[in-house]
Protein backbone atom coordinates (compact mmCIF):
# COMPACT_ATOMS: atom_id res chain seq x y z
CA UNK A 1 0.00 0.00 0.00
CA UNK A 2 1.47 3.32 -1.04
CA UNK A 3 -0.15 5.36 1.77
CA UNK A 4 -0.15 3.16 4.85
CA UNK A 5 -1.39 5.93 7.12
CA UNK A 6 -4.27 7.09 4.97
CA UNK A 7 -7.54 5.66 6.25
CA UNK A 8 -9.76 6.67 3.33
CA UNK A 9 -8.94 3.81 0.93
CA UNK A 10 -9.34 1.32 3.76
CA UNK A 11 -12.76 2.63 4.66
CA UNK A 12 -13.75 2.54 1.00
CA UNK A 13 -12.57 -1.08 0.76
CA UNK A 14 -14.42 -1.99 3.93
CA UNK A 15 -17.58 -0.38 2.62
CA UNK A 16 -17.29 -2.25 -0.67
CA UNK A 17 -17.21 -5.45 1.41
CA UNK A 18 -20.05 -4.78 3.87
CA UNK A 19 -22.07 -2.34 1.72
CA UNK A 20 -24.18 -4.97 -0.09
CA UNK A 21 -25.04 -6.70 3.20
CA UNK A 22 -26.04 -3.39 4.84
CA UNK A 23 -28.13 -2.53 1.81
CA UNK A 24 -30.07 -5.81 1.78
CA UNK A 25 -30.68 -5.81 5.54
CA UNK A 26 -31.63 -2.12 5.43
CA UNK A 27 -34.13 -2.70 2.61
CA UNK A 28 -35.79 -5.54 4.52
CA UNK A 29 -36.10 -3.50 7.72
CA UNK A 30 -37.43 -0.52 5.78
CA UNK A 31 -40.06 -2.65 4.01
CA UNK A 32 -41.12 -4.10 7.35
CA UNK A 33 -41.35 -0.63 8.93
CA UNK A 34 -43.43 0.70 6.02
CA UNK A 35 -45.77 -2.29 6.08
CA UNK A 36 -46.33 -2.04 9.84
CA UNK A 37 -47.17 1.67 9.57
CA UNK A 38 -49.27 1.71 6.39
CA UNK A 39 -51.33 -1.46 7.00
CA UNK A 40 -52.22 -0.31 10.53
CA UNK A 41 -51.59 -3.81 11.88
CA UNK A 42 -51.74 -4.05 15.70
CA UNK A 43 -48.34 -3.86 17.43
CA UNK A 44 -49.36 -6.89 19.52
CA UNK A 45 -49.33 -8.87 16.27
CA UNK A 46 -46.47 -7.32 14.29
CA UNK A 47 -44.58 -4.47 15.90
CA UNK A 48 -42.58 -2.12 13.65
CA UNK A 49 -38.76 -2.39 13.91
CA UNK A 50 -38.62 1.12 15.35
CA UNK A 51 -40.90 0.01 18.20
CA UNK A 52 -38.76 -3.09 18.79
CA UNK A 53 -35.65 -0.93 19.01
CA UNK A 54 -37.37 1.60 21.29
CA UNK A 55 -38.61 -1.15 23.64
CA UNK A 56 -35.18 -2.78 23.62
CA UNK A 57 -33.68 0.49 24.85
CA UNK A 58 -36.39 0.93 27.49
CA UNK A 59 -35.92 -2.64 28.72
CA UNK A 60 -32.14 -2.62 28.48
CA UNK A 61 -31.59 -3.52 32.13
CA UNK A 62 -33.92 -6.56 31.99
CA UNK A 63 -32.45 -7.63 28.65
CA UNK A 64 -28.92 -7.32 30.01
CA UNK A 65 -29.77 -9.33 33.14
CA UNK A 66 -31.17 -12.08 30.96
CA UNK A 67 -28.30 -12.03 28.45
CA UNK A 68 -25.58 -12.72 31.01
CA UNK A 69 -26.84 -16.24 31.90
CA UNK A 70 -27.24 -17.03 28.19
CA UNK A 71 -23.65 -16.00 27.51
CA UNK A 72 -22.36 -18.08 30.45
CA UNK A 73 -24.36 -21.12 29.31
CA UNK A 74 -23.14 -20.71 25.72
CA UNK A 75 -19.48 -20.30 26.63
CA UNK A 76 -19.43 -22.97 29.37
CA UNK A 77 -21.27 -25.47 27.17
CA UNK A 78 -19.07 -24.71 24.22
CA UNK A 79 -15.89 -25.02 26.29
CA UNK A 80 -16.98 -28.45 27.59
CA UNK A 81 -17.93 -29.56 24.09
CA UNK A 82 -14.57 -28.40 22.70
CA UNK A 83 -12.57 -30.16 25.42
CA UNK A 84 -14.41 -33.47 24.98
CA UNK A 85 -14.35 -33.23 21.16
CA UNK A 86 -10.59 -32.59 21.21
CA UNK A 87 -9.78 -35.48 23.54
CA UNK A 88 -11.99 -37.87 21.58
CA UNK A 89 -10.61 -36.70 18.23
CA UNK A 90 -7.06 -37.47 19.40
CA UNK A 91 -8.09 -40.91 20.66
CA UNK A 92 -9.85 -41.63 17.36
CA UNK A 93 -6.79 -40.47 15.39
CA UNK A 94 -4.53 -42.86 17.28
CA UNK A 95 -7.01 -45.72 17.43
CA UNK A 96 -9.09 -45.85 14.26
CA UNK A 97 -11.59 -48.61 15.30
CA UNK A 98 -12.84 -46.19 17.93
CA UNK A 99 -14.24 -44.10 15.13
CA UNK A 100 -16.38 -46.96 13.84
CA UNK A 101 -17.58 -47.66 17.37
CA UNK A 102 -18.41 -44.06 18.33
CA UNK A 103 -19.53 -42.24 15.19
CA UNK A 104 -22.92 -44.03 14.89
CA UNK A 105 -23.71 -43.03 18.48
CA UNK A 106 -22.86 -39.41 17.75
CA UNK A 107 -24.80 -39.37 14.50
CA UNK A 108 -27.86 -40.63 16.37
CA UNK A 109 -27.31 -37.92 19.00
CA UNK A 110 -27.62 -35.37 16.19
CA UNK A 111 -30.99 -36.75 15.08
CA UNK A 112 -32.63 -36.11 18.47
CA UNK A 113 -35.15 -33.27 18.11
CA UNK A 114 -34.14 -30.49 20.47
CA UNK A 115 -37.83 -29.73 21.18
CA UNK A 116 -38.21 -33.16 22.76
CA UNK A 117 -34.84 -33.51 24.43
CA UNK A 118 -34.56 -30.03 26.00
CA UNK A 119 -37.52 -30.39 28.46
CA UNK A 120 -36.29 -33.87 29.41
CA UNK A 121 -32.77 -32.66 30.19
CA UNK A 122 -34.28 -29.85 32.28
CA UNK A 123 -36.49 -32.42 34.03
CA UNK A 124 -33.46 -34.57 34.87
CA UNK A 125 -30.96 -31.86 35.79
CA UNK A 126 -33.08 -28.98 37.09
CA UNK A 127 -33.27 -25.27 36.23
CA UNK A 128 -29.59 -24.50 36.84
CA UNK A 129 -26.66 -24.16 34.47
CA UNK A 130 -26.03 -27.92 34.04
CA UNK A 131 -28.83 -28.75 31.56
CA UNK A 132 -27.93 -25.68 29.46
CA UNK A 133 -24.31 -26.71 29.27
CA UNK A 134 -25.38 -30.22 28.29
CA UNK A 135 -27.68 -29.04 25.51
CA UNK A 136 -25.14 -26.58 24.10
CA UNK A 137 -22.57 -29.40 24.16
CA UNK A 138 -25.01 -31.76 22.47
CA UNK A 139 -25.54 -29.49 19.47
CA UNK A 140 -21.92 -28.36 19.08
CA UNK A 141 -19.92 -31.46 20.01
CA UNK A 142 -20.36 -33.51 16.86
CA UNK A 143 -19.56 -30.78 14.30
CA UNK A 144 -16.37 -30.00 16.24
CA UNK A 145 -15.37 -33.68 16.45
CA UNK A 146 -15.92 -34.22 12.71
CA UNK A 147 -13.98 -31.05 11.88
CA UNK A 148 -10.99 -32.12 13.99
CA UNK A 149 -10.90 -35.72 12.74
CA UNK A 150 -11.15 -34.53 9.12
CA UNK A 151 -8.51 -31.92 9.80
CA UNK A 152 -6.01 -34.51 11.02
CA UNK A 153 -6.71 -36.58 7.94
CA UNK A 154 -6.06 -33.63 5.63
CA UNK A 155 -2.35 -33.81 6.56
CA UNK A 156 -0.11 -33.79 3.48
CA UNK A 157 1.16 -37.37 2.94
CA UNK A 158 4.55 -36.05 1.85
CA UNK A 159 4.93 -34.24 5.18
CA UNK A 160 4.10 -37.42 7.11
CA UNK A 161 6.50 -39.47 4.97
CA UNK A 162 9.20 -36.84 5.47
CA UNK A 163 8.77 -36.84 9.25
CA UNK A 164 8.87 -40.63 9.52
CA UNK A 165 12.00 -40.66 7.32
CA UNK A 166 13.51 -38.30 9.90
CA UNK A 167 12.70 -40.83 12.62
CA UNK A 168 9.76 -39.00 14.20
CA UNK A 169 7.48 -41.06 16.46
CA UNK A 170 3.74 -41.20 15.88
CA UNK A 171 3.21 -38.73 18.71
CA UNK A 172 5.79 -36.35 17.18
CA UNK A 173 4.11 -36.61 13.77
CA UNK A 174 0.76 -35.82 15.40
CA UNK A 175 2.11 -32.75 17.19
CA UNK A 176 4.30 -31.47 14.34
CA UNK A 177 2.04 -32.16 11.37
CA UNK A 178 -1.45 -33.51 12.05
CA UNK A 179 -2.46 -31.02 14.73
CA UNK A 180 -1.41 -27.88 12.79
CA UNK A 181 -2.95 -29.33 9.60
CA UNK A 182 -6.31 -29.52 11.35
CA UNK A 183 -6.41 -25.79 12.18
CA UNK A 184 -8.35 -24.61 9.09
CA UNK A 185 -10.93 -27.35 9.62
CA UNK A 186 -11.07 -26.60 13.33
CA UNK A 187 -11.86 -22.94 12.70
CA UNK A 188 -14.44 -23.74 10.02
CA UNK A 189 -16.16 -26.02 12.54
CA UNK A 190 -15.81 -23.37 15.24
CA UNK A 191 -17.57 -20.72 13.15
CA UNK A 192 -20.53 -23.03 12.48
CA UNK A 193 -20.74 -24.44 16.00
CA UNK A 194 -20.63 -21.10 17.80
CA UNK A 195 -23.87 -20.08 16.07
CA UNK A 196 -25.48 -23.40 17.02
CA UNK A 197 -24.29 -22.88 20.58
CA UNK A 198 -26.32 -19.68 21.10
CA UNK A 199 -29.45 -21.28 19.64
CA UNK A 200 -28.89 -24.35 21.84
CA UNK A 201 -28.58 -22.22 24.99
CA UNK A 202 -31.75 -20.25 24.20
CA UNK A 203 -33.62 -23.45 23.51
CA UNK A 204 -32.52 -24.91 26.83
CA UNK A 205 -33.71 -21.78 28.66
CA UNK A 206 -36.98 -21.85 26.78
CA UNK A 207 -37.57 -25.32 28.22
CA UNK A 208 -37.14 -24.01 31.74
CA UNK A 209 -34.85 -21.55 33.44
CA UNK A 210 -34.84 -18.89 36.13
CA UNK A 211 -33.18 -16.30 33.90
CA UNK A 212 -31.95 -16.10 30.33
CA UNK A 213 -32.93 -14.86 26.87
CA UNK A 214 -34.93 -18.03 26.21
CA UNK A 215 -37.15 -17.71 29.24
CA UNK A 216 -37.42 -13.94 28.64
CA UNK A 217 -38.78 -14.62 25.14
CA UNK A 218 -41.26 -17.16 26.51
CA UNK A 219 -42.55 -14.75 29.17
CA UNK A 220 -42.80 -11.87 26.67
CA UNK A 221 -44.78 -14.08 24.29
CA UNK A 222 -47.14 -15.14 27.08
CA UNK A 223 -47.70 -11.47 27.94
CA UNK A 224 -48.59 -10.68 24.29
CA UNK A 225 -45.45 -8.56 23.86
CA UNK A 226 -44.01 -9.61 20.47
CA UNK A 227 -41.98 -6.39 20.51
CA UNK A 228 -40.05 -7.70 23.53
CA UNK A 229 -39.68 -11.16 21.95
CA UNK A 230 -38.11 -9.49 18.94
CA UNK A 231 -35.97 -7.26 21.16
CA UNK A 232 -34.56 -10.44 22.73
CA UNK A 233 -34.09 -11.91 19.26
CA UNK A 234 -32.13 -8.80 18.31
CA UNK A 235 -29.88 -9.25 21.34
CA UNK A 236 -29.30 -12.94 20.57
CA UNK A 237 -28.48 -12.09 16.95
CA UNK A 238 -25.96 -9.47 18.08
CA UNK A 239 -24.50 -11.96 20.54
CA UNK A 240 -24.07 -14.58 17.80
CA UNK A 241 -22.47 -12.03 15.48
CA UNK A 242 -20.07 -10.95 18.21
CA UNK A 243 -19.03 -14.56 18.92
CA UNK A 244 -18.64 -15.21 15.19
CA UNK A 245 -16.43 -12.14 14.82
CA UNK A 246 -14.38 -13.31 17.80
CA UNK A 247 -13.68 -16.68 16.11
CA UNK A 248 -12.58 -14.89 12.95
CA UNK A 249 -10.18 -12.70 14.95
CA UNK A 250 -8.80 -15.70 16.86
CA UNK A 251 -8.26 -17.53 13.58
CA UNK A 252 -6.35 -14.59 12.13
CA UNK A 253 -4.12 -14.44 15.16
CA UNK A 254 -3.59 -18.21 15.28
CA UNK A 255 -2.91 -18.69 11.56
CA UNK A 256 -0.88 -15.73 10.28
CA UNK A 257 0.28 -17.75 7.25
CA UNK A 258 -3.25 -18.32 6.01
CA UNK A 259 -3.78 -14.77 4.81
CA UNK A 260 -0.55 -15.03 2.81
CA UNK A 261 -1.90 -18.13 1.11
CA UNK A 262 -5.15 -16.34 0.32
CA UNK A 263 -3.29 -13.30 -1.00
CA UNK A 264 -1.20 -15.50 -3.27
CA UNK A 265 -4.22 -17.33 -4.69
CA UNK A 266 -6.27 -14.21 -5.40
Amino acid at each position, binding site marked *: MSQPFSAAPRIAALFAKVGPALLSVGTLVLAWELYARISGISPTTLPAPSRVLFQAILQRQALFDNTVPTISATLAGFACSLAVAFILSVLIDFFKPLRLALFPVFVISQTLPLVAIAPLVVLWFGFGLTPKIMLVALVTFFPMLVALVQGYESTDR*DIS*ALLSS*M*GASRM*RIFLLARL*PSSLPYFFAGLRISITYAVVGAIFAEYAGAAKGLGIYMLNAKNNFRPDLVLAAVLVSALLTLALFAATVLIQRAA*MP*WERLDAARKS
Partner: protein
Amino acid sequence: MSRRLELRQVSKSFGDIDVLAGITLHVEPGEFVSILGPSGAGKSTIFRLLTGGLEGHGGGVDFDGQPLADARRPFAFMPQHDALMPWRTVIDNTALGLEVQGMSRKAARDEVAPLFGEFGLAGFEHKYPAQLSGGMRQRAALLRTVVQDRAMLLLDEPFGALDALTRTGMQRWLQTMWDRHRWTVLLITHDVREAVFLSDRIYVLSGRPARVLREVAIPLPRPRKDLASPEATAIEADILHTLLDPQPAQRT
Protein backbone atom coordinates in the same frame (compact mmCIF):
# COMPACT_ATOMS: atom_id res chain seq x y z
CA MET B 1 36.10 -49.16 0.61
CA SER B 2 32.70 -50.82 0.84
CA ARG B 3 29.78 -49.56 -1.16
CA ARG B 4 27.58 -47.02 0.50
CA LEU B 5 24.32 -48.52 -0.70
CA GLU B 6 23.70 -51.80 -2.42
CA LEU B 7 20.37 -53.26 -3.51
CA ARG B 8 20.40 -56.92 -4.51
CA GLN B 9 17.42 -58.32 -6.43
CA VAL B 10 14.97 -56.16 -4.48
CA SER B 11 11.37 -56.96 -5.34
CA LYS B 12 8.07 -55.65 -4.01
CA SER B 13 4.47 -56.32 -4.84
CA PHE B 14 1.20 -54.92 -3.58
CA GLY B 15 -1.26 -57.82 -3.63
CA ASP B 16 -1.20 -59.20 -7.17
CA ILE B 17 0.62 -56.21 -8.63
CA ASP B 18 4.38 -56.54 -8.97
CA VAL B 19 5.96 -53.12 -8.67
CA LEU B 20 9.66 -53.91 -8.38
CA ALA B 21 10.96 -57.02 -10.17
CA GLY B 22 14.47 -57.67 -8.91
CA ILE B 23 16.22 -54.30 -8.74
CA THR B 24 19.99 -54.50 -8.38
CA LEU B 25 21.95 -51.29 -8.04
CA HIS B 26 24.64 -49.69 -5.96
CA VAL B 27 25.95 -46.25 -4.98
CA GLU B 28 29.57 -45.51 -4.02
CA PRO B 29 30.44 -42.95 -1.36
CA GLY B 30 30.47 -39.44 -2.86
CA GLU B 31 28.76 -40.61 -6.01
CA PHE B 32 25.75 -39.01 -7.70
CA VAL B 33 23.49 -41.75 -9.06
CA SER B 34 20.11 -41.35 -10.75
CA ILE B 35 17.22 -43.72 -11.18
CA LEU B 36 15.53 -42.81 -14.44
CA GLY B 37 12.24 -44.29 -15.48
CA PRO B 38 8.74 -43.62 -16.73
CA SER B 39 6.10 -42.17 -14.39
CA GLY B 40 4.35 -44.69 -12.19
CA ALA B 41 7.10 -47.27 -12.64
CA GLY B 42 7.67 -47.69 -8.92
CA LYS B 43 10.72 -45.46 -8.54
CA SER B 44 9.31 -43.85 -5.40
CA THR B 45 8.61 -47.32 -3.98
CA ILE B 46 12.37 -47.86 -3.76
CA PHE B 47 12.67 -44.74 -1.59
CA ARG B 48 9.74 -45.76 0.57
CA LEU B 49 11.43 -49.09 1.21
CA LEU B 50 14.69 -47.34 2.13
CA THR B 51 13.12 -44.73 4.44
CA GLY B 52 10.97 -47.28 6.28
CA GLY B 53 7.68 -46.03 4.84
CA LEU B 54 7.05 -49.53 3.44
CA GLU B 55 7.89 -52.90 4.88
CA GLY B 56 8.44 -56.36 3.49
CA HIS B 57 10.32 -56.91 0.28
CA GLY B 58 12.35 -59.58 -1.48
CA GLY B 59 16.11 -59.39 -1.90
CA GLY B 60 18.66 -57.57 0.24
CA VAL B 61 19.70 -54.02 1.05
CA ASP B 62 23.16 -53.28 2.43
CA PHE B 63 24.39 -49.95 3.72
CA ASP B 64 28.14 -49.51 4.23
CA GLY B 65 28.48 -53.28 4.04
CA GLN B 66 25.89 -54.00 6.73
CA PRO B 67 22.27 -55.10 6.19
CA LEU B 68 20.04 -52.02 6.46
CA ALA B 69 18.33 -52.18 9.86
CA ASP B 70 15.25 -50.19 10.77
CA ALA B 71 16.96 -48.65 13.78
CA ARG B 72 19.52 -46.83 11.65
CA ARG B 73 18.40 -43.89 9.58
CA PRO B 74 21.26 -43.16 7.25
CA PHE B 75 19.15 -41.28 4.69
CA ALA B 76 18.00 -37.69 4.40
CA PHE B 77 14.90 -37.76 2.22
CA MET B 78 13.50 -34.99 0.02
CA PRO B 79 9.96 -35.84 -1.09
CA GLN B 80 8.48 -35.13 -4.49
CA HIS B 81 6.65 -31.96 -3.56
CA ASP B 82 8.63 -29.68 -1.31
CA ALA B 83 6.51 -30.72 1.72
CA LEU B 84 7.28 -27.44 3.48
CA MET B 85 4.92 -26.88 6.38
CA PRO B 86 2.85 -23.76 5.58
CA TRP B 87 2.55 -22.92 9.29
CA ARG B 88 6.31 -22.86 9.92
CA THR B 89 8.62 -20.06 8.88
CA VAL B 90 11.35 -20.95 6.40
CA ILE B 91 14.03 -21.24 9.09
CA ASP B 92 11.83 -23.50 11.22
CA ASN B 93 11.04 -25.62 8.18
CA THR B 94 14.70 -26.09 7.35
CA ALA B 95 15.50 -26.89 10.99
CA LEU B 96 12.76 -29.53 11.21
CA GLY B 97 15.04 -32.56 10.87
CA LEU B 98 17.35 -31.31 13.62
CA GLU B 99 14.36 -30.70 15.90
CA VAL B 100 13.12 -34.23 15.29
CA GLN B 101 16.62 -35.48 16.18
CA GLY B 102 16.09 -33.90 19.59
CA MET B 103 17.77 -30.50 19.21
CA SER B 104 16.02 -27.52 20.80
CA ARG B 105 14.36 -25.15 18.37
CA LYS B 106 16.87 -22.43 19.15
CA ALA B 107 19.91 -24.67 18.68
CA ALA B 108 18.45 -26.03 15.44
CA ARG B 109 17.89 -22.48 14.14
CA ASP B 110 21.46 -21.52 15.02
CA GLU B 111 22.68 -24.55 13.10
CA VAL B 112 20.82 -23.80 9.85
CA ALA B 113 21.01 -20.00 9.87
CA PRO B 114 24.60 -19.75 8.51
CA LEU B 115 23.61 -21.84 5.46
CA PHE B 116 20.89 -19.49 4.22
CA GLY B 117 23.31 -17.43 2.14
CA GLU B 118 24.73 -20.39 0.27
CA PHE B 119 21.22 -21.64 -0.51
CA GLY B 120 20.11 -18.25 -1.84
CA LEU B 121 17.61 -17.77 0.97
CA ALA B 122 19.26 -14.96 2.95
CA GLY B 123 16.67 -12.51 4.26
CA PHE B 124 13.84 -15.04 3.97
CA GLU B 125 14.47 -16.81 7.29
CA HIS B 126 11.31 -15.53 8.90
CA LYS B 127 9.00 -15.59 5.89
CA TYR B 128 6.40 -18.28 5.41
CA PRO B 129 6.72 -20.77 2.51
CA ALA B 130 3.74 -19.12 0.78
CA GLN B 131 5.91 -16.01 0.34
CA LEU B 132 8.62 -17.92 -1.58
CA SER B 133 8.94 -18.63 -5.30
CA GLY B 134 8.92 -22.22 -6.54
CA GLY B 135 12.69 -22.35 -6.91
CA MET B 136 13.26 -20.92 -3.43
CA ARG B 137 10.88 -23.46 -1.95
CA GLN B 138 12.92 -26.29 -3.52
CA ARG B 139 16.16 -24.77 -2.22
CA ALA B 140 14.63 -24.57 1.26
CA ALA B 141 13.53 -28.20 0.98
CA LEU B 142 17.06 -29.21 -0.07
CA LEU B 143 18.56 -27.22 2.80
CA ARG B 144 16.22 -29.05 5.18
CA THR B 145 17.51 -32.32 3.67
CA VAL B 146 21.28 -31.72 3.74
CA VAL B 147 21.35 -30.09 7.18
CA GLN B 148 20.34 -33.42 8.73
CA ASP B 149 23.93 -34.49 8.05
CA ARG B 150 23.08 -38.03 6.98
CA ALA B 151 25.39 -40.35 5.08
CA MET B 152 23.27 -40.18 1.94
CA LEU B 153 20.63 -38.00 0.27
CA LEU B 154 17.52 -39.43 -1.40
CA LEU B 155 15.97 -36.88 -3.77
CA ASP B 156 12.59 -37.80 -5.25
CA GLU B 157 11.96 -35.75 -8.43
CA PRO B 158 12.96 -32.55 -6.65
CA PHE B 159 12.31 -30.25 -9.62
CA GLY B 160 9.32 -32.02 -11.16
CA ALA B 161 6.79 -29.36 -10.18
CA LEU B 162 8.81 -26.35 -11.43
CA ASP B 163 8.42 -24.49 -14.70
CA ALA B 164 11.03 -25.31 -17.36
CA LEU B 165 13.17 -22.20 -16.88
CA THR B 166 13.26 -22.42 -13.08
CA ARG B 167 13.99 -26.14 -13.34
CA THR B 168 17.04 -25.56 -15.56
CA GLY B 169 18.31 -22.92 -13.15
CA MET B 170 17.85 -25.29 -10.22
CA GLN B 171 19.64 -28.13 -12.01
CA ARG B 172 22.66 -25.93 -12.63
CA TRP B 173 22.56 -24.72 -9.05
CA LEU B 174 22.38 -28.28 -7.68
CA GLN B 175 25.31 -29.28 -9.92
CA THR B 176 27.41 -26.46 -8.47
CA MET B 177 26.39 -27.31 -4.91
CA TRP B 178 27.22 -30.97 -5.44
CA ASP B 179 30.66 -30.10 -6.83
CA ARG B 180 31.32 -28.16 -3.65
CA HIS B 181 29.97 -30.67 -1.12
CA ARG B 182 30.22 -34.06 -2.90
CA TRP B 183 27.22 -35.53 -1.12
CA THR B 184 26.33 -39.15 -1.81
CA VAL B 185 23.11 -38.79 -3.76
CA LEU B 186 20.47 -41.09 -5.16
CA LEU B 187 18.12 -39.06 -7.37
CA ILE B 188 14.83 -40.19 -8.85
CA THR B 189 13.74 -38.45 -12.02
CA HIS B 190 11.94 -38.95 -15.30
CA ASP B 191 13.84 -36.08 -16.91
CA VAL B 192 16.60 -37.63 -19.06
CA ARG B 193 18.51 -34.38 -19.51
CA GLU B 194 18.48 -33.73 -15.78
CA ALA B 195 19.82 -37.24 -15.07
CA VAL B 196 22.61 -36.91 -17.65
CA PHE B 197 23.60 -33.44 -16.47
CA LEU B 198 23.79 -34.28 -12.77
CA SER B 199 24.83 -37.93 -12.49
CA ASP B 200 27.96 -40.03 -12.42
CA ARG B 201 25.87 -43.06 -13.29
CA ILE B 202 22.26 -43.66 -14.29
CA TYR B 203 20.06 -46.70 -13.83
CA VAL B 204 17.39 -46.79 -16.51
CA LEU B 205 14.24 -48.52 -15.26
CA SER B 206 11.46 -50.13 -17.28
CA GLY B 207 7.75 -49.53 -16.76
CA ARG B 208 5.91 -51.58 -14.14
CA PRO B 209 7.05 -54.02 -12.91
CA ALA B 210 10.27 -52.05 -12.74
CA ARG B 211 13.53 -53.74 -13.63
CA VAL B 212 16.88 -52.22 -14.53
CA LEU B 213 17.06 -51.90 -18.30
CA ARG B 214 20.53 -50.36 -18.45
CA GLU B 215 23.26 -48.93 -16.34
CA VAL B 216 24.84 -45.90 -18.01
CA ALA B 217 28.08 -44.26 -16.84
CA ILE B 218 28.27 -40.53 -17.63
CA PRO B 219 31.92 -39.73 -18.35
CA LEU B 220 31.34 -35.99 -18.87
CA PRO B 221 33.98 -33.90 -17.07
CA ARG B 222 33.04 -31.77 -14.08
CA PRO B 223 32.27 -29.02 -13.34
CA ARG B 224 29.53 -29.22 -15.94
CA LYS B 225 28.07 -25.99 -17.21
CA ASP B 226 26.07 -26.84 -20.30
CA LEU B 227 22.95 -28.98 -19.98
CA ALA B 228 22.88 -29.63 -23.72
CA SER B 229 26.51 -30.04 -24.76
CA PRO B 230 26.92 -32.29 -27.86
CA GLU B 231 28.31 -35.15 -25.73
CA ALA B 232 25.43 -34.89 -23.24
CA THR B 233 22.89 -34.74 -26.04
CA ALA B 234 24.26 -37.92 -27.60
CA ILE B 235 23.96 -39.83 -24.31
CA GLU B 236 20.50 -38.37 -23.82
CA ALA B 237 19.33 -39.57 -27.23
CA ASP B 238 20.71 -43.03 -26.57
CA ILE B 239 18.91 -43.30 -23.21
CA LEU B 240 15.66 -41.97 -24.67
CA HIS B 241 15.85 -44.68 -27.27
CA THR B 242 16.12 -47.32 -24.53
CA LEU B 243 13.20 -45.81 -22.60
CA LEU B 244 10.85 -45.38 -25.52
CA ASP B 245 11.71 -48.61 -27.31
CA PRO B 246 12.94 -51.08 -24.68
CA GLN B 247 14.51 -54.16 -26.24
CA PRO B 248 14.65 -57.36 -24.16
CA ALA B 249 18.28 -57.84 -25.29
CA GLN B 250 19.29 -54.62 -23.50
CA ARG B 251 18.32 -55.93 -20.07
CA THR B 252 21.22 -56.36 -17.72
